[in-house]
């Protein structure tokens, strides 16, 4: 290891290390826990469609290939990864998002053996034309399953309307047509570009001996020159592509999602994310006047929610829910944003949100799975881990009001609605 540092986070000792290869390692031991959770992740997701390695020419690959690669990584010449994990009893999985692919397992016994399996199979790709072909039926069923989820359709419609050309508008798993173009050579090309240790992070939380983990990483991860990864994203206009789309779906009650596009030149800081979180709690949380009003008028139900989507080249606030009258909800929402901008945020509302966010942040430290996921997000997003207590401590109402002026712009908003067929 090139560098090992230790610091105290929420009463525990966090280990952070950087391997000679550039691989980052974060270990959060939890005393007296019997479970351990581990993740091996690469900063490579569905949006990395056009890229070049080193001096090579840019290449554009079929949509859904990062997710396809994730499926195929579990296979090997001999035993597949699931068979190997089966011998240790660990529960393993993997997932692909817009900007990362994560391989993970959790276990309460034989942790080091399982960690060795994880570090080994993610570094050992094995694809043949036949094995690649075999996966198409399985992934096609996964795609169809997603198509039957109205919530998926709602969000993909919204992303298509908010973004004109950024690949975040394309479904993570791709389409049945796009995945048909994937072959073993393309998979190897993506693998060798993005699965270099310098583009990756290992996170461990729970019952683990940090020194043993670092020693294993030292033994299993080779030191090799890091290629330069160049990613290309199309220029994205300031405004949304289409402001409103209504489609039919087999839903009982209309579903809606509103997206407010933001500038996304660089990644958001931890402080900005925290301010946005507080803002959304204040605006639509169950302590807000808006939520109460919408409930009393029968316009929203328990599904009403807000989240922030942010990554390389994209950032937006999304508010979604079910409503008999989505347009009225959107109208009320924009009116409340305008009112808060005009009148400011009451100190009491800010304090409620700040304390609730504080409790939520601390509670996350009890869950080893959440810990690994948050550490991974921070490492790959270039943000420090474990600083929310401090940020919330110094956060001010004025700062959240400033964020309110930057976000939730109705001129950069798109609305996606799904209605039952008879209402179309």
């Amino acid at each position: 290891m090139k560098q090992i540092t230790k610091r105290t986070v929420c009463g525990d000792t966090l280990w952070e290390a950087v391997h000679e290869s550039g691989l980052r390692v974060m270990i959060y031991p939890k005393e007296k826990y019997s479970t351990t959770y581990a993740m091996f992740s690469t900063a490579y997701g569905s949006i990395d469609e056009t890229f070049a390695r080193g001096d090579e020419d840019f290449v554009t690959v079929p949509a859904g290939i990062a997710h396809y690669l994730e499926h195929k990584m579990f296979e090997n010449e001999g035993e597949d990864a699931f068979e190997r994990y089966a011998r240790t009893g660990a529960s393993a999985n993997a997932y692909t998002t817009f900007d990362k692919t994560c391989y993970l397992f959790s276990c309460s016994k034989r942790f080091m053996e399982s960690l060795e399996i994880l570090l080994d199979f993610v570094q050992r790709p094995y694809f043949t034309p036949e094995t690649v072909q075999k996966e198409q039926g399985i992934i096609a069923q996964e795609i169809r399953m997603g198509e039957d989820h109205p919530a998926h359709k709602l969000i993909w419609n919204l992303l298509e309307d908010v973004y004109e050309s950024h690949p975040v508008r394309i479904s993570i798993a791709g389409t049945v047509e796009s995945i048909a173009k994937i072959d073993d050579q393309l998979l190897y090309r993506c693998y060798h570009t993005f699965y270099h240790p310098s583009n990756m992070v290992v996170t461990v939380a729970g019952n683990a001996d940090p020194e043993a983990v670092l020693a294993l990483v030292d033994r299993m991860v080779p030191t090799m020159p890091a290629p330069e990864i160049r990613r290309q994203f199309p220029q994205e206009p300031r405004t949304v592509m289409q402001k409103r789309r209504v489609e039919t779906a087999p839903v009982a009650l209309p579903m809606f999602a509103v997206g407010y596009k933001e500038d996304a030149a660089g990644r958001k800081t931890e402080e900005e994310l925290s301010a946005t979180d507080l803002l959304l709690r204040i605006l639509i949380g169950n302590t807000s006047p808006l939520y109460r009003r919408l409930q009393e008028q029968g316009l929203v139900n328990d599904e009403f929610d807000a989240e922030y989507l942010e990554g390389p080249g994209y950032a937006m606030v999304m508010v979604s829910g079910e409503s008999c009258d989505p347009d009225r909800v959107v109208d009320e929402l924009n009116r409340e944003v305008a009112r808060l901008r005009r009148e400011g945020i009451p100190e009491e509302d800010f304090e409620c949100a700040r304390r609730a966010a504080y409790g939520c942040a601390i509670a996350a430290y009890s869950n080893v799975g959440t810990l690994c996921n948050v550490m991974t997000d921070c490492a790959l997003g270039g943000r420090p881990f474990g600083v929310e207590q401090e940020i919330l401590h110094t956060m001010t109402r004025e700062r959240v009001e400033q964020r309110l002026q930057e976000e939730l712009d109705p001129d950069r908003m798109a609305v996606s609605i799904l209605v039952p067929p008879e209402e179309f």
Partner: protein
Amino acid sequence: MKLIQIGAGAQLAVIRDDRFQTVRISAHFMMPVVAEKMAAYALLPRLLPRGCARYPDYTAFNRKLAMLYGAGITGSVQMSGETEMIHISLGMLDDRYVPDGESILAEGIGLLCDVMFDPVLDENGWFRAADVAEEKRNLTEEIRAELNDKRGYALRRAREIMFDGEPYGAPRQGTPEDVEALTPAGLTEEWKTILRTAPITVTAIGMVDEEIAAAAFAEALKRISRAPVQLPVPVQRAGNALREVTERTEAQQAKLVMGFRVQLPEDGNTMPLRLGTVLLGGTPSSRLFKNVRERLSLCYYCAARCDWNKGVLMVDSGVQEDKAAQVRAEVLHQLEELQQGRFDAEELEIARRAMIDQFGSVSDSVGMLDGWYTDQLRTGSIMTPEEAEARIQAVTAEDIAQALSGVRPELFYLLAGQEEVPNA
């Protein structure tokens, strides 16, 4: 675990543990399942956490909780065998993590007790009409939205069809018509009946001061003249003839559910059945995953689960309609193999290790500990995760074949798209 009597038919189970950043205190009310009452049982846990006599205003109540560092009081309902359980839970930061040495535990417990024992009532002594109307709408919308998640919907429909006429087949949350018929007076009466007659278990997990918790609940229960009912023993009906039912909806992918009746063992040891279910379809090394998904590429998921409180095993898979018969035949074939004892020692050990590993992770989560002990406290046979592990270790291949030999198919249910697709 320590058990403290807090009233007639009411006990407090204290699981003291200093590893968590949070505490969780839950009251579990248990009633026999009665089809006509399911809507009321589903509505009450939504209605109660809206406030209490001290904080009758919904927003003010939520702000009070937010100021306690985002404490949450939530309600839910769950059917276990033929017992309906209403859970009202408080989750909040452990006092050790509250800034400035403030103590919030007693206040949280006070609010939790108030929600149940001192709810918001109008001048007639009933739940307020406006609160009831809002939650009736929320519940109705949730029931109507069940079809949005087709996998869950298909599993529910299969259970309702298979157990038609038995309490176990009752719609979990009632029908929209049942909800419509609920009145403030009727719901108030129902809640009073529950307070009087339901066996109650309160679980307190984390660093909870048991004296504060026991005193608060004992004091509240003292005001009620308790007459707890006997909970029903699940109906063990003789098997039905196999039925095939297809229902159609708007869908790309069909959902196949195969329902099997299971003879529960006379000695009450359900471990062989549970292990057999894992061997059949509980892990990526199971028979169903390896054959239906990996070998035949017919689906993305094909899984088995059992309810050992009732004696039912369900297999479900998302498939193309024209492949459903092929999936069905393969599932039956794999089940028969296991019934005949045609599985090797390695497969058995894999399933065993997976189950043992899961038991090992129970103690690392306040939520999982709550679920683990609540179900056991209901039946009175309490096992620690370590004791469960020992029982799984003792299960032999013959035990599994024996447990599965009483598994008989009763229903093949298919939720398919509007256009019929004949078998390939």
